[in-house]
């Protein structure tokens, strides 16, 4: 388990704030492309970073303690600074109001994300990919499925780009690996086709129950690994369960794509329609579970969370993310506390 949860310094979040353009590099999913049903492949970058987004480093522990003594004001302004660095629209989006960041479930979501000790890592990742994809699609269906008159809630005029606020929009790589901007509706269509193409491919997600393996446990599994694999052979996650060499990479891409869709749902559709349809708690629960899982399994890197960073901060502050899990560590707690204060919850 330790490899899943080895602590990452919370400061990573601050220091990792990229130089502009850093995430412009195309993702490495070339192996997935031949299977892509269209001449567009999921590619990917966060473009149009209109503002520098460099949250200040968290204070050193000594400073934190210092502040913790009595000076709440300086802390507040500190949190405010962090929030300011996110360049959020004002007033802040409704989903950052703690009263609307609640859940249909209580308890430690980590109990659902943590890999069972005996289960091989690749098998667990595959399971989580499919579960989260099914969850996400329940929400996408609401905005994406046509009414009888052919209209959809998410359409090229409401969402001309696959955006997550003013600062982020996501592009798709076409066959020439050029980033193209698409309306969110179309992006999501392509994304869905691409993901289900992967998930339904038994070469990537094997379903034969005879091919299963188990987690190696040095304390119990006394047979040397060499008996399970040939020594000179390349090793990768999921290999012994029949997952392909690029399996983790494919899953990371799937998680990244799903994250973008969630980000779009929050930034463009939280009120219209999810709040109106009384689905915001469901959305919160599924997305927070998604973030916890993705971080715990290293399917998403801290910098990839950026469009949703303030919500992650808030969830770390309001107890949605248990301490010690990676999502909690990726959060900026001062920003989260400030959001709680703004919502009059402290």
């Amino acid at each position, binding site marked *: 388990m330790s490899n899943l949860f080895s602590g990452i310094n919370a400061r990573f979040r601050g220091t990792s704030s990229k130089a502009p353009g850093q995430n412009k590099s195309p993702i490495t999913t070339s192996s997935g492309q031949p299977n892509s049903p269209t001449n567009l492949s999921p590619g990917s970058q966060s473009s149009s970073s209109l503002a520098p987004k460099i949250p200040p480093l968290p204070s050193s522990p000594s400073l*934190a303690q210092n502040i913790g003594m009595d000076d709440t004001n300086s802390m507040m302004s500190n949190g405010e600074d962090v929030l300011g660095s996110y360049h959020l629209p004002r007033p802040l989006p409704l989903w950052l109001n703690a009263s609307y960041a609640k*859940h249909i479930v209580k308890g*430690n979501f980590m109990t659902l994300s943590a890999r*069972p000790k005996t289960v*091989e890592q690749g098998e667990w990742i595959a399971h989580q990919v499919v579960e989260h994809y099914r969850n996400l699609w329940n929400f996408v269906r609401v905005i994406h499925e046509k009414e009888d008159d052919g209209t959809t809630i998410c359409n090229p005029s409401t969402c001309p780009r696959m955006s997550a606020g003013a600062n982020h929009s996501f592009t798709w790589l076409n066959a020439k690996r050029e980033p193209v901007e698409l309306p969110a509706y179309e992006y999501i269509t392509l994304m869905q086709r691409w993901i289900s193409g992967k998930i339904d491919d038994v070469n990537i997600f094997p379903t*034969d129950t005879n091919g299963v393996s188990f987690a190696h446990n040095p304390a119990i599994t006394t047979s040397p690994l060499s008996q399970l694999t040939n020594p000179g052979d390349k090793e990768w996650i999921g290999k012994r369960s029949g997952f392909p060499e690029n399996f983790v990479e494919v899953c990371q891409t799937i998680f990244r794509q799903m994250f973008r869709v969630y980000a779009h749902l929050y930034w463009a559709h939280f009120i219209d329609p999810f709040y109106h*349809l009384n689905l915001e708690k469901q959305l919160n629960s599924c997305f927070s579970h998604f973030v916890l899982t993705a971080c715990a399994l290293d399917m998403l890197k801290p910098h990839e969370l950026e469009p949703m960073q303030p919500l992650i901060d808030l969830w770390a502050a309001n107890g949605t993310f248990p301490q010690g899990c990676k999502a909690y560590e990726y959060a900026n707690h001062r920003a989260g506390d400030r959001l709680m204060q703004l919502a009059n919850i402290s």
Partner: protein
Amino acid sequence: MDPNRLHLNFGNNGDRLAPSDRTYPTTPSTFPQPVFPNASGQQAAQQAQGGQQYGYPANNYFPPGQYQQGYAPQGGDYGNAGYQPRSNTPGTNDPNVGLAHQFSHQNLGGAARGNAYGGSRGPSPGQRPRTAGGSGNQQPGYGYGNAPPLPTSSSRNAPDFQQAPERYPEKYGINSNNNQKKCSQLAADFFKDSVKRARERNLRQSEMEQKLSEPSQSASRREQIWQNGGKKEARYLRFLRTKDKPENYTTVKIIGKGAFGEVKLVQKKSDGVVYAMKSLIKTEMFKKDQLAHVRAERDILAESDSPWVVKLFTTFQDANFLYMLMEFLPGGDLMTMLIKYEIFSEDITRFYIAEIVLAIEAVHKLGFIHRDIKPDNILLDRGGHVKLTDFGLSTGFHKLHDNNYYQQLLQGKSNRPRDRNSVAIDQINLTVSNRAQINDWRRSRRLMAYSTVGTPDYIAPEIFTGHGYTFDCDWWSLGTIMFECLVGWPPFCAEDSHDTYRKIVNWRQSLYFPDDITLGAEAEHLIRSLICNTEVRLGRSGAHEIKNHAFFRGVEFDSLRRIRAPFEPRLTSATDTTYFPTDEIDQTDNATVLKAQALAAGKPIEDTPEMSLPFIGYTFKRFDNNFR
């Protein structure tokens, strides 16, 4: 602000995050506790946070208003609390109690159903701890289409945020609103199922760890235990992410047919394991208003792990059918046995009735009233022991909750089922001498069992007189079955259902023990203690009343299931259907029929059939013998 909180939020203080000694929530002892398990420092910090209502209330997975009663996991108690809360419902005249009531627990946040069943549910129990923030959660009518969360201290003064508009679901189209319902229910189901699975998985994990820790275990054996454990979990995970479909099974034989579908003996292609597959025709279920029943059956079978209840392995669906994959019980049913043997000796009757008592007791302990106990629903397993089936679907269940339906039957004209052979039988005249006639009745009985109307022979009078009923209605049914075992026909047997209803309601006049059949005094006494008014019916305050009856003197109830049954099925193979009347059943399956019809009508097939709204959330997958 509380200094503790700051302390918490700055995160890097070194007294938390000691990754090396972190235990993870898969540790069984810690799992059901939603508090993040760890060092005491963290706990304290959590509590400080909890004081702010933002920690993890230790026993509350689901906030109020979503899971009102049924699913309040408290410690390891998840799902066990059923009997208590549900027993509030019987005894009312509400037609939606019992199975349908159980059904209502599944429709989380679905507005329409919430209203339909809300009446019998009562307000949200007061003991639910308030959780985070405490706005809007406690509204009993949580659904959609409401105003924004109640303005509370938490949201009142928040000019820094976008203002929440008034919720306005009507602005969206029908499909969006349907998708809203699906989404709401599937999200709730996802968490409910995931928690249940994680809990069960941790139980298996701790069982395994116990085995591993036994000192006598050799290293190679330990390794084997570990590997097998991991592989079984992995097989289950693959099962979960694979969509099951009927093409994965080959049909051996059709072993039962009814108005809503059929039961087939099937074999899984990949591993050859034998199951009974019930397939229900969606359009029929929908037309005949059986959705609540189907859902209830799925729920009770999914929740139960009793040896007295037939096991459900998985459910899935396609455009036309719902499928339930269940254990195959090769011994057939009690109806077939009664048709074959006509009557049982008192000893044999004692055995079956005693087992049925235990089976009904098990169902009651799950919080259900079966209400349709009859010989067709009593199955015999490999060893000849009893299991109950047909919770809510069975053919006799047509609008069982609808009092009007029965009132019509009672007051209306004779309502002869079309597909039943008309056999002139006046129960008063039945004696051993006209067994031939009775045998005609028995044969027509099977037809009756397959019809939509079903047989009312075993139903308690209070169910269709509309004066309310409770758990003891199943004990009435027990009495009528016992009568049939000893006498050869059910006590209110009549030419058509209309007459049967009348006889049941006038049971004082119509209950008659034929002169030429000698019953033991105790047997007759027990029957008369069960076929009587609910106020004095034996079993009213629990199954023990019946178990203590003199008729059962000497019966060891606790070990009953382990003794040899009086009839043990003799089977030649795993797919032996000797005990099913397969030659009386048309072996053309419904899928073939439907396909032919669809082809003839040129009907298109839905593209996402599993998403058709009424059947949402039906799919279920059990970790069971396959993976154990």
